[in-house]
């Protein structure tokens, strides 16, 4: 039963632009709605999203890999029986942690929640994590430490429209979420990025640090704020703790020293802080550019320190936020896909949290596993003696998206069983023993939580094609085959959501007062939104956090005592350049979806390597030639794109492409000790023509 039109949201990034889908002459048509974050705007990806619905190679049957290595269509029961039987055997022989689950930040809240529950009680494994580890984990670690809670933007996106100054640290929003710029028309922008991106071109001030030196720059900005007397002393005294220890680290980062380390002129550092100080309303926003480092959590913390010193967080019209990447990057990290978390953003090691969630799930708290490996460690352990032997992948394409992808490909090949649920034959699905075809955005109901912490409804326009099931049904099908009662794994999204609400109740990300009914009635609900007794008015949700207090017990935000350190892999004589990876407007994440949209593929058909003309010339390369980019881990091929504004020491590679064009063949999996975020944004490389040796 489907409607002729549906108000829903774009299937891609965390901005979750509002769209209206309709059917006209058998085709699906998309139009931007006047939803507050996109206000009638939509980027190329959003406009062309319907092409995904009837992509020619859409998966329409479960596939089983035969002894000849080829995939053969089979019935659902056959596929699920086979998976369950193999899982049971592996678990019996090697214990529950021999089965692992890898989720995604694009899954709806309902799927993310049920997947976490499935892992913990149907599989009994601790080994679950998700690709959001590569996205939000650094900012999440820093935000939790500073504020006591992690919500990407603790204020509505629309608040940005009144800002005088906005600092964008490592965020290329003009390409990653273009309609956000509609809220940044008034503000003077300060953009921190090693590249002169489209966003940087819009900036009043562009700071262009060497890759991997953002932490030094952030410390320098705090240093300037203090020495120039721009620190908001009364705010710091009334609302924060830990300033002195943070200052003692920033002490050593005077502007001229920061200049030498980062390449950002001292006068530009002062100008940046002055712009923030003189603004009546100012925001500091971070993105993956500063977070995807082996010191990403400390770097995000250093930018939070700057915001705190200037008195921004928790002040109406000002603040700090991080720009979430994936569509449900926010909700995906709140409901139990993360190795160390239970629903409601609860810690899996907290006895009270375990008791609460176990009660909702109807199990003994002692049955819940403890924390497991984080994403990269999990994938790197696959098929090793003490690692998992089976992996279930939902909503992710690690063959393309994980650092040191060549090594991870070997780990996946070493598994006894790889199961992938997807709607297209992604690079990872092609390697799977069993492929389970699932429904996609316009074919399903659910909720996502956008970058501003607002819970949004995804609505169905179409039925999924015959032979395709929803992820919830897949999870139930496996759970029941593993001996679980069907009622414990409902397949109706609203039922799952109601249970998710109860499980999250009382946690930091409390959804218990949110219902499909309230959302469908048009309420704008931001978490926390706790349930209230029936005789009281419903909780209105929390558009703005921290106005009165921060979420730590003492109500204060905490400065972090962080210091700069070098990238894990500095440039050397053998590998003299630093490669950094990122996104382009036309593509999304691993490209498994956007490369299947003809218009988007035409816009950016293949991987390229941006470099300074001198860098190209020194390597014997010219614009348009194929370059081989080598790191200590591997090599990849990319078309040379000469860009005059590039730093000569830097090469930029978009990471959306498959095969030999995978940027992640060369990236460095050095992990942040706090967030376990890999160092996507800096690794040492050398470049040369295709036929050069090495």
């Amino acid at each position, binding site marked *: 039963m489907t409607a002729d039109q549906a108000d829903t949201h774009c299937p891609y990034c965390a901005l979750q632009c509002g769209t209206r889908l309709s059917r006209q002459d058998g085709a699906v048509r998309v139009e*931007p709605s*006047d939803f507050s974050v996109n*206000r*009638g*705007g*939509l*980027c*190329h990806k959003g*406009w062309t999203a319907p092409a995904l619905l009837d992509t020619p190679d859409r998966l329409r049957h479960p596939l089983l890999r035969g002894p000849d290595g080829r995939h053969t269509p089979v019935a659902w029961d056959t596929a699920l029986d086979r998976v369950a039987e193999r899982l049971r055997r592996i678990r019996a022989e090697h214990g529950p942690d021999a089965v692992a689950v890898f989720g995604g930040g694009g899954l709806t809240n309902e799927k993310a929640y049920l997947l976490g529950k499935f892992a913990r009680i149907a599989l009994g494994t601790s080994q679950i994590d998700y690709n959001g580890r590569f996205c939000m984990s650094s900012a999440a670690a820093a935000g939790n430490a500073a504020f006591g809670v992690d919500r990407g933007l603790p204020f509505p996106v629309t608040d940005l429209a009144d800002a005088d100054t906005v600092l964008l640290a490592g965020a290329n929003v*003009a*390409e990653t979420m*273009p*309609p*956000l*710029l*509609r809220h940044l*028309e008034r503000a003077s922008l300060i953009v921190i990025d090693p590249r002169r991106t*489209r966003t940087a071109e*819009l900036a009043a001030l562009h700071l262009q640090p*060497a890759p991997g030196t953002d932490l030094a720059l952030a410390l320098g900005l705090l240093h300037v704020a*203090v*020495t*120039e*007397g721009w620190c908001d002393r009364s705010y710091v005294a009334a609302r924060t703790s830990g300033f002195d*220890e943070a*200052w*003692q*680290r920033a*002490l*050593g980062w*005077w502007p*001229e*020293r920061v*200049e*030498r380390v980062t*390449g*950002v*002129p*001292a*006068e*530009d550092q*002062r100008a940046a802080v002055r712009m923030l100080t003189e603004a009546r309303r100012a925001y500091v926003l971070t993105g993956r550019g500063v977070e995807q480092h082996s010191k990403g959590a400390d770097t995000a913390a250093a930018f939070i320190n700057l915001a705190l010193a200037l008195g921004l967080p928790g002040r109406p019209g000002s603040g700090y936020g991080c720009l979430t990447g994936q569509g449900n990057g926010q909700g995906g990290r709140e409901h139990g896909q993360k190795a160390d978390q239970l629903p409601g953003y609860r810690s899996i090691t907290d006895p009270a949290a375990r008791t609460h969630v176990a009660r909702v799930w109807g199990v003994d708290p002692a049955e819940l596993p403890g924390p497991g490996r984080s994403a990269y460690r999990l994938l790197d352990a696959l098929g090793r003696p003490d690692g998992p032997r089976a992996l279930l992948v939902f909503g992710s394409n690690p063959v393309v998206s994980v650092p040191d992808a060549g090594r991870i490909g070997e780990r996946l090949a070493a598994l006894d069983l790889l199961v992938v649920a997807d709607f297209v034959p992604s690079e990872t699905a092609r390697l799977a023993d069993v492929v389970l075809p699932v429904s996609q955005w316009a074919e399903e109901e659910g909720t996502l939580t956008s970058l501003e912490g607002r819970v949004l409804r995804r609505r169905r326009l179409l039925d999924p094609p015959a032979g395709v099931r929803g992820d919830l049904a897949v999870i139930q099908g496996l759970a029941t085959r593993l001996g679980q009662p069907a009622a414990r794994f409902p397949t109706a999204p609203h039922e799952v959501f109601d249970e998710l609400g109860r499980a999250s109740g009382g946690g930091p990300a409390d959804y218990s007062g949110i219902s499909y009914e309230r959302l469908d009635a048009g309420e704008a609900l931001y978490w926390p939104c706790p349930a209230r007794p029936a005789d009281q008015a419903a909780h209105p949700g929390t558009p703005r956090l921290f106005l009165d207090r921060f979420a730590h017990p003492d109500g204060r935000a905490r400065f972090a*005592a962080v210091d700069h350190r070098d990238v894990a892999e500095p*440039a050397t004589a053998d590998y*003299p350049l630093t490669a950094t990876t990122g996104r382009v*407007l*036309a593509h999304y994440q691993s490209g498994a979806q956007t490369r299947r949209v003809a*218009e988007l593929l035409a*816009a950016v058909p293949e991987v390229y390597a941006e470099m*300074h*003309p*001198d860098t190209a*010339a*020194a390597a014997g390369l010219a*614009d348009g030639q194929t370059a081989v980019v080598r790191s200590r881990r591997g090599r990849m091929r990319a078309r040379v794109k*000469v860009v*005059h*504004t590039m730093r*000569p*020491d830097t090469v930029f590679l978009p990471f959306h492409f498959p095969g030999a064009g995978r940027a992640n063949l060369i990236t460095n999996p050095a992990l942040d000790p706090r967030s376990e975020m890999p160092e996507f944004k800096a690794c040492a490389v050398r470049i040369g023509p295709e036929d050069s040796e090495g």
Partner: protein
Amino acid sequence: MGIVIVGGGPAAHRLVNALRRSGYGGRLTVLGAERHPAYHRPLLGSVLAGQLPPEALTLPPAEAELRTGTTVTSVDREHRTVHTGDGASHPYETLVLATGARPRWPRLGGPAPDGEPAAAPPVPVTVLRTLDDCRDLRAALGGPAAAPRSVAVVGAGVLGVETAMTLRESGHHVTLVHRAPHPMDRRLDATAGDLLAERLRQLGVRLLLGRTATGYGPGHLRLDGDERLPADHVVLCAGTVPRTGLARRAGLAVRTGVVVDGHLRTSDPRIHAIGDCAEQDDVVAGTVTTAWEQADTLAALLTGARPGTPARPPRSVLRLRTRAVELAVFGPPQPPAGGGPTETVTFQDRSGARYARLVLSGGRLRAGVLLGLPRAAAALAQLYDRDAPLPSDRLSLLLGVAPMTGEPADLPEDSLVCDCNNVSRAGLRQAWQDGARDLYALVAATRATTGCGGCADDVRAWCAQATAGTAARPGDAALCAPAVPSTLGGVK
């Protein structure tokens, strides 16, 4: 036993942290002569300027047994023990000298045995080396509300120039006395020196160049020719001298500083020296960044983290720490000989107070001076540190703008009007030819303007031009002018 460090300054502090980070779990004793725990000497200027209170310079506590106010009187190398002024002794396995440097007191008005003036001079005289020095000078000159005082600064090296500017910015009447014909003559050529002098004068600093201070009198500083320069206060910025007395008495090799090899070892392999007291490859670097590098290297050597890695002779970058003038000096005053053929890049813009002189070899920077070119200073520091080749477009590098070389930008027809929806001018033209003859139709056909909205003006202008170009009915232009479609809502 364990490691004993003589000196409690930034070098010692860094060494303790680096050792602990490298996993050193043994005993660490720091014997510091100053009464303060380690503080951040490079920021003393901010204290003098009143930007920071003295206590803000304190470094975080390090994991070591710290004895402040403790002077080491002798080293007994045979018994591997140091003796301190309070009668205590500390045995060591490894001894590190981080004794730093003391300010040079020029011999004005009589002999100055052991570097200290023999008797109190008849005018207040200060050096600027320690936190107490800065605090005392600031107290003597009075706070921000105090009346301006006359201050004579003797010596126009880096410290003298920075101090003169700081005191001038605080409103005092400052005279800078220097022997050479231009300030910072050890690091600057005459052109750069003259430009710096001009800038100092613009800021209101009185310069007495080619002059020598000869003595003190009541309320004045005496100069050569028996001129009397009235001064409420004299600040001596005559450079520093490595503190080597302890090493010398212990029989270690000492030239200007305590001589160390590539492993930062003195002539006694159990004794190391780092920081301002150490002389490596005939150079006493005397900068905190060098001291830090040496501390990190020594920690790695002592803990075996980098066995046998010799310390790299540091690259010297001098960056004047004042906003009033952007000055950077790379490398030695004269580039080292024998490095192959050199090339010199010069740029001078006298009225803009901009000057550059770069000596390159193999396309890499060997030495250089930059004045008034802050972006080049930032870019070149990194290229110099990494010994990386300079960009081929040297003028763009100096001016800090994107290179102008290479192909012109995209051909106009291929260039994107709307990045968000990948719409080129050719795309607009195609839509126009297909019948989209007003803004609404163009937007509907191409989706231009519907992403971030930033190209709305461009599309509107293109439409107006196209309309005019067709020379069709006059009403067509009006079609493009009115209010924008709903999808353009909110666009400027």
